[in-house]
């Protein structure tokens, strides 16, 4: 690759950008939800309420770091760390602009799948370690949901791999120069989006949390920064899935030349983040057996058929 940028700068830059995006999403999400729900949202601290991000972070930092005596101490502490660490690691494979990627890696997608499987542990372990009944139910739901959606998250990506012939995300972006994969892979995109929602367990698929049923689900006993880790991990997950959708189906950094490639990448990613927030604002939550059933009985066969049809068409060309 023609990279001339010091890889340390890239790593630092990606980490800095991701963490700040996640923090900024606190404000973005609350303002956007407010906009769609006909109310103000945070508007007091600083211009447009932007300093709410700072206020929230300070609050998190100075909260009591509490490990309940009835919990499994070690696991209880590790669970929130897992989610943040795995999502942060997944960002290594995403090319932000030509040459700007932490690891230009020929098995990039597989790495993402591997880390997203690891992420599922954080919910299971966190809920289990809490030794709380709501948390336990939430953890069990989370486990069923995440393993279900992992199967065809991988399957839905295969269409893209088929078309580009590579697991490397830079190659995948470059393969879209003649046309974004959203057109031939619309079904794949849809399945990946649903699976991504389920993996990040956001509304409408926030079934491990489902506030109205399980209080706070798997993180009922968490507070302070350990809760903050789950919180920020969720936002980073949203950013990750948005960035991946952009890269895999919407041509990544590709766009008209009058603006730099990184702008296109960021703009598209932000658009998908907004889509995530809009979905949260508008959809009710399915019951989790419905979600699991929908996954197995509808999305899984659909993903398989999509793969076969893509293959067949590709072969005929």
């Amino acid at each position: 690759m023609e990279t001339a940028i010091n890889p340390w700068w890239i790593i630092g830059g990606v980490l800095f950008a991701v963490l700040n995006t996640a923090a900024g999403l606190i404000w973005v999400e609350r303002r956007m939800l407010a906009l769609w729900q006909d109310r103000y949202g945070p508007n007091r601290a600083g211009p447009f309420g932007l300093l709410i991000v700072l206020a929230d972070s300070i609050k998190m930092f100075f909260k009591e770091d509490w490990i309940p005596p009835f919990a499994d101490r070690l696991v209880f502490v590790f669970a929130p760390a897992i989610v943040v660490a795995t999502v942060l690691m997944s960002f290594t494979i995403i090319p932000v602009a030509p040459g700007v990627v932490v690891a230009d890696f020929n098995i990039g997608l597989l790495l993402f799948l591997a880390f997203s499987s690891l992420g599922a542990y954080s919910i299971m372990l966190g809920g289990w370690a809490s030794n709380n009944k709501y948390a336990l139910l939430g953890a069990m739901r989370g486990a069923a949901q995440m393993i279900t959606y992992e199967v065809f998250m991988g399957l839905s990506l295969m269409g893209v791999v088929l078309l580009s012939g590579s697991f490397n995300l830079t190659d995948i972006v470059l393969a879209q120069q003649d046309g974004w994969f959203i057109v031939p892979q619309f079904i794949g995109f849809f399945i990946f989006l649903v699976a991504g929602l389920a993996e990040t367990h956001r509304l409408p698929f926030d079934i491990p949390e489902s506030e109205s049923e399980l209080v706070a689900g798997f993180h009922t006993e968490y507070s302070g920064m350990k809760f903050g880790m789950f919180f920020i991990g969720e936002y980073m997950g949203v950013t990750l899935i948005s960035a991946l959708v952009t890269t895999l189906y919407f041509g990544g950094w590709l766009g008209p030349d009058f603006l730099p490639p990184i702008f296109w990448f960021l703009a598209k990613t932000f658009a998908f983040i907004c889509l995530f927030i809009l979905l949260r604002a508008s959809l009710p939550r399915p019951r989790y057996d419905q979600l699991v059933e929908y996954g197995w009985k509808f999305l899984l066969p659909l993903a398989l058929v999509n793969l076969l049809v893509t293959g067949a068409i590709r072969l005929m060309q």
Partner: protein
Amino acid sequence: MIPDLLAALRSRFGNDIVEPETTRDETPTFWTPQGKVLDLLIYLKTGLSQPFSMMYDLTAHDMRAYKKDLNGHSRFDFQLVYHLFSFERNAFLRLKVGLEGEYPSHPTATHIWPSLNWYEREVYDMFGIRFEGHPRLRRILMPSNWEGHPLRKEHPARATEMGPFRLWDEKQDAEQKALQFDPAEWGLQTQSEDSDFLFLNIGPQHPGTHGVLRVILQLDGEEIVDAIPEIGFHHRGAEKMGERQSWHTYIPYTDRIDYLGGVMNNLAYLLAVEKLAGITVPPRAQTIRVMLCELFRIASHLVWYGTFAQDVGQLSPVFYMFTDREKVFSIVEAITGGRMHPNWFRIGGVAQDLPAGWDGLVRQFIEYFPRKLKEYDKMVMRNSIFKARTKGIGIFTLQEAIEWGVTGPGLRACGLEWDMRKKRPYSGYENFDFEVPVASHGDCYDRAVVRVEEMRQSLRIIDQCLKNMPEGPYKSSHPLTTPPIKKHTMQDIETLINHFLNVSWGPVIPPGEAMSCIEATKGWNGYYLLSDGNTSPYRVRVRAPSFAHMQMLPYISRGYTVADLLSILGAMDFVLADVDR
């Protein structure tokens, strides 16, 4: 109806089975000896043609301090009062049983009507009357370690008659311990063949229960094996308070029973008071009352609509609906000065005449609201995930609904077109043209369908109020009207005296008993009042619909999942203050 019913009963059981009594509200009332009441109840429910299939209410009176003549009937220490309802006859039947002794006992009738379970527990809790053979006779509204029976006359009615309340650490621990659930006490298994059951508290401090309701779930995985609602956390002794407030000053307490229904509670109470006093309310006051009640029906249903959507995880509708509810409240505020609890109806009418410009506000809302309802239909009712969460969930049949005393939209969702505003019109509802929405499946979704349609019908009624608001006084000129119309007091000494007495002491309502029953937001709401000719009621009985509905929760939630429980609770549309009073 009374003569042939009397004849039918006497021909079957002999002459001494029942003894009729004439009451002020003209509800058919029979006294029956204690030994025969069970046979009589069974016959009334199953043997009679056009049976009394619903057990509407059971309550008791502590008659030991009642000084007035009892309509010629002999006095007992306590009397139990069963209220039955027959849909075929469109009639209530009041059945009274006299009980003697300090702590009398009485045979249970829970095997005849399952819905009597909670009512008998309530009577036991409040009066100390034991029901022999009751499956689980324990306190229901008061904490299990509470001492005494609050509705007995020897129990103080004022805080000043007791020492100050203190909660020291040991007491708090004891209370906490008393709240802990013991499966054995309820006869529940702790494990199945291959796994343990999980006992999970949903509430009292839980985001999904709309207040301090506690539901104890016996879970097999996520499946509900059994559910036990524990109520009473919101109990404020509304019935006891009635015994120390004057007839007039009790009105604001009624506002807070179904706190989403606002003045509709005033109406239920006042209809009973006015029956006792023999007051006829002038048409303008009646129409104002109807209009306000329907506005509150819309406000209440909007809260239900939004929170129901939120219960199944839809975040946004509740914000839109509360915004619309604010619009209703701004009308209510312009008319009454209050918002949620206006306390605005008075004995014999309403507090004030409508303000200038009220019609503009109402007209604006009538034009604005249908559009929003259409939008909400799209947003909530036609959402496929919402449908998946509510269709086929929490089903009960019409038969079961009647058996358990379900009223209001829940009953209509089973296909019975029964609305008290149509069938037993009060406050001039017979003059209005509206439809009674029904649905047929009796599941959570259908209950929602009925309520949504009811909002449209309420709007129709409000529109008719707007177009046909009668002229005339907003208060009756009856001497017991409280406070009386001021301008007359300046004319003659009679009304001046009435004014003075009614305002300083409160009105003296003639002795007797009367019951009202209105179609409130959540079902049939009734006040059953007993007067001994004093400035305050001798006994106030509040029959709240949510109490009966909540009792049915275990029955309709077994076999569903925890997530479904929230759909069921949401579709039930209860208010904890209405359950616990």
